[in-house]
């Protein structure tokens, strides 16, 4: 291309022909993900670029168009089963104005994609979706400008169709023939010519998920399905308790077992590699029996976790402090809520495949964060980061920081022990249950005062919790790294700052309250391994706040839904509440039948992301204490809808997962060891407890920013359940799980 004919891309992106708006340039910055990113910050631009363009501003980091017209979109986010691949492809297709099936999407790969930190915190749509949407729109704008220049026509008279730009005289320029090496290598502009939502053809459509057919027909879809040539199988022998040291292992017999290639020992890290998977399993069992450990762990008393938490040294964080003197004539209420440690309990135990060849380490992993995991593994291995590549491949649902990052680290160590051969590490069920970092136990104390008008006049909230993130991080975040002969130290935990928050996520009530104070007692001492579990503090804080709102409503003699509306000004919050209540029939019947109750819960995740309200009906059998959800109705506002079926799927899942957490689950342990090591000792919801009916109403907000929805339902559902049980039994249950045993103890005889 001659210099004269090269369009001024900067000029194009600066706004000639720009229309509509880029919504994310609205002032407030969404706080970054849980841990510092590894990418170098780009040159400062003000106002900030939308979504992840802030950190990865070049358009061709996101979108590549080949000479043959093939379109590849890159995202730093990963498909976790939440449907993000499909949603991002819809966004790209819409803004590029091409058919959906023209888009190929590449996800989280340290060699290929932007660094978007973790796929966590419900940020994928807000960060990656926003970036891709704007990038795609700007790419189309550049393509149109290039075609216009060639056609000698004003850009405003060109239109796009079927991956081509069409001139008024019907001359057609395919996208592929328009791109040159540098056309898209330009930093994004602040404003994007986004499509009018009224004209969407691909966004806001219930496009079937692209990843589902393979998963339902046995095509390779998961990291567990990888079988590179020459692959061997490994199993790690983990200690019987935290911090145990391997005193000795008599592995002579194991080395001679059929198929065994190597026994690997580095300090207290012990593993075996074999030709076939069952050979590795049998060798693991024998190796475990031959190992002798010195155990030193001291775990708290699981029957009195609340007292334990309040006894720990705390760093007090003032989350909110606008407390004022409260008028006389107020009614005071206080309550204390708690939850035990909760497990992710991924159905597929963690797995990774790694290959160490010619000084380069490649790891296929289902980690939520390929860049952070790479950095930690590189440090552990003493290798430069650019010699380590982490490629995301799907695993089973992880619901946060489970064993995936650690399995990747295990695989890295074992790949180095067998250079050239791909090594597959599969965690056992017992290992996943015992070694994954749990959602931390939490205690919440709430005090409030009602004025004589039945409004909340004062609000005082204290939260006790460990950190909600020990994600990599430095090498010491990785399990294996802490057990090596030269171990890495576990880094001191740090609280996640608000507005995202960790234990204090969602602790600021969204309700209009004139005087309020929230203190987060951050507890660095972690005898039990903890990290991010879906919704982080947002599950427990919403459970507590929304249970307490019901208790306040009862003290004020008010209907729970009316009471919430009385304290809410946010129109979108009001609408999800009234939608859920109406569709549930909240106003119609106060109580369905004896032993049956109804409950309501609402929250805006992080007070920043999606709004969700849940109403449910629960039946309680007095004699057995069994509580069963019969029906649930939810309403959710996720901003601009990309795929309403995807959102509904997530909220349905959230309600059932939350039902299981709320009624059934608690990690068990004795003074030394975790004892809930499988599904018999850590039961979760089964089909017998599934409700009869569930409806999800997705409210569409055309043109509004995307609001993350993957974690929006858990907190409101938990509160709705607890409120329904209280309504059914006349007893308020504040300590999770609300088990049949505890219900029976309270009301049975």
């Amino acid at each position, binding site marked *: 291309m001659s210099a004269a004919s090269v369009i001024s891309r900067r000029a194009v992106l600066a706004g000639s022909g720009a229309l509509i708006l880029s919504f994310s340039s609205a002032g407030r910055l969404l706080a970054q993900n849980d841990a510092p990113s590894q990418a170098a910050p780009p040159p400062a631009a003000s106002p900030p670029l939308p979504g992840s363009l802030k950190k990865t501003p070049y358009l061709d980091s996101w979108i590549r168009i080949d000479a043959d017209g093939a379109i590849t979109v890159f995202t730093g986010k990963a498909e976790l089963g939440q449907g993000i691949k499909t949603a991002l492809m819809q966004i790209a297709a819409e803004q590029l104005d091409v058919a959906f099936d023209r888009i190929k999407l590449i996800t989280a790969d340290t060699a290929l994609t932007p660094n978007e930190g973790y796929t966590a915190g419900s940020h994928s749509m807000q960060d990656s979706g926003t970036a891709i949407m704007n990038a795609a729109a700007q790419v189309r704008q550049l393509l149109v400008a290039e075609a216009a220049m060639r056609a000698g026509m004003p850009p405003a008279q060109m239109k796009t169709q079927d991956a081509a730009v069409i001139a008024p005289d019907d001359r057609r320029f395919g996208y592929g023939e328009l791109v040159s090496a540098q056309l898209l290598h330009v930093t994004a502009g602040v404003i994007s010519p986004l499509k009018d939502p009224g004209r969407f053809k691909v966004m806001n459509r219930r496009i079937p998920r692209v990843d589902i057919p393979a998963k339902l027909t046995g095509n390779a879809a998961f990291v567990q399905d990888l079988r590179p040539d020459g692959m061997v199988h490994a199993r790690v022998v983990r200690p019987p308790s935290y911090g145990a040291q391997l005193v000795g292992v008599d592995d002579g017999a194991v080395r001679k077992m059929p198929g065994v290639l190597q026994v690997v020992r580095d300090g207290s890290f012990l593993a075996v590699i074999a030709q076939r998977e069952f050979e590795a399993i049998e060798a693991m069992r024998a190796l475990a029996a031959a190992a002798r450990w010195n155990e030193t762990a001291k775990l708290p008393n699981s029957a009195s976790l609340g007292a334990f938490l309040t006894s720990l040294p705390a760093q007090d964080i003032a989350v909110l402090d606008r407390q004022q003197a409260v008028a006389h004539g107020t009614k005071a209420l206080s309550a204390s809520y708690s939850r035990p440690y909760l497990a992710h309990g*991924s159905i597929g135990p963690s797995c990774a495949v790694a290959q160490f060849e010619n000084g380069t380490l490649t790891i296929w992993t289902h980690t939520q964060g390929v860049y952070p995991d790479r950095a930690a593994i590189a440090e552990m291995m003493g290798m430069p980061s650019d010699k380590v590549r982490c490629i995301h491949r799907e695993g089973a649902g992880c619901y946060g920081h489970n064993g995936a990052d650690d399995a990747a680290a295990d695989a890295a160590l074992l790949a180095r022990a067998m250079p050239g051969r791909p090594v597959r590490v599969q965690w056992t069920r017992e290992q996943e249950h015992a070694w994954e970092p749990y959602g931390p136990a939490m205690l919440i104390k709430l005090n409030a005062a009602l004025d004589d008008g039945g409004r909340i006049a004062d609000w005082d909230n204290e939260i006790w919790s460990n950190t909600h993130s020990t994600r990599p991080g430095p090498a010491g975040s990785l399990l294996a790294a802490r057990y090596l002969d030269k171990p890495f130290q576990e880094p001191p935990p740090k609280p996640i700052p608000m507005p995202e928050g960790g234990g204090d996520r969602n602790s600021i009530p969204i309700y209009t309250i004139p005087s309020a104070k929230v203190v987060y007692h951050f507890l660095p001492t972690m005898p039990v391994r903890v990290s991010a579990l879906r919704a982080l503090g947002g599950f427990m804080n919403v459970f507590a706040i929304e249970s307490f709102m019901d208790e306040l409503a009862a003290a004020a003699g008010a209907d729970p839904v009316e009471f919430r509306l009385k304290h809410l000004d946010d129109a979108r919050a009001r609408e999800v509440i009234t939608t859920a209540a109406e569709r549930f029939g909240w106003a119609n019947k106060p109580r369905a039948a004896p032993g049956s109750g109804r409950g309501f819960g609402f929250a805006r995740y992080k007070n920043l992301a999606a709004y969700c309200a849940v109403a449910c009906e629960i039946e309680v059998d007095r004699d057995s204490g069994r509580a069963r959800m019969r029906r649930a109705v939810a309403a959710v506002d996720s901003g601009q809808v990309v795929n309403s079926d995807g959102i509904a*799927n997530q909220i349905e899942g959230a309600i*059932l997962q939350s039902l299981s957490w709320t009624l059934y689950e608690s990690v068990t342990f004795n003074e030394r060891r975790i004892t809930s090591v499988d*599904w018999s000792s850590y039961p979760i919801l089964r089909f017998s407890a599934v409700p009869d009916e569930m409806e999800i109403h997705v409210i569409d907000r055309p043109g509004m920013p995307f609001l993350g929805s993957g974690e929006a339902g858990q907190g409101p559902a938990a509160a709705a359940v607890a409120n329904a049980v209280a309504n059914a039994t006349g007893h308020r249950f504040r300590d999770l799980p609300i088990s049949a045993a505890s219900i029976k103890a309270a009301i049975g005889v």
Partner: protein
Amino acid sequence: MKLSINGSQHGVDVDPRTPLLYVLRGELKLNAAKFGCGLGQCGACTVLIDGEPVFSCVTPVALLAGKQITTLEGLGTPERPAPIQRAFIEAQAAQCGYCIPGIMMRAHALLEKNPHASAADIRAFLEPHLCRCGTHMRILRAIHRAQAEMMSANAGGSG
């Protein structure tokens, strides 16, 4: 030894104690049956033996001479999915999708044996299966959908 899988004979040279799951995934490179627990607690490994759902993670291949093994791959393909697969795809009955193949095998076995299974029968029959993502509502909807399709196919005389 010889195993009959999805209608074909396969010769495999493995220790007869090896659970079928590892032979399916390792020697035969079939993906649908999954490792979820290896303990018979979650159902992710479910396949059919002579039409009966079993946990392949605790079924040594020594038991399987002369028996018909059916995996999800044997029911249909992406190009020609079986009714149960079509129903699940249309209902978008999956989140992470890891547990779904095992559930589909069990549901398929039930509907083959008892085409008129009631909603309560279906739920009770699925009790051995876990789904951590909470896709249960869609799973049940998909099975009803498959049931309707299978019944109308039979009524049309092509069953």
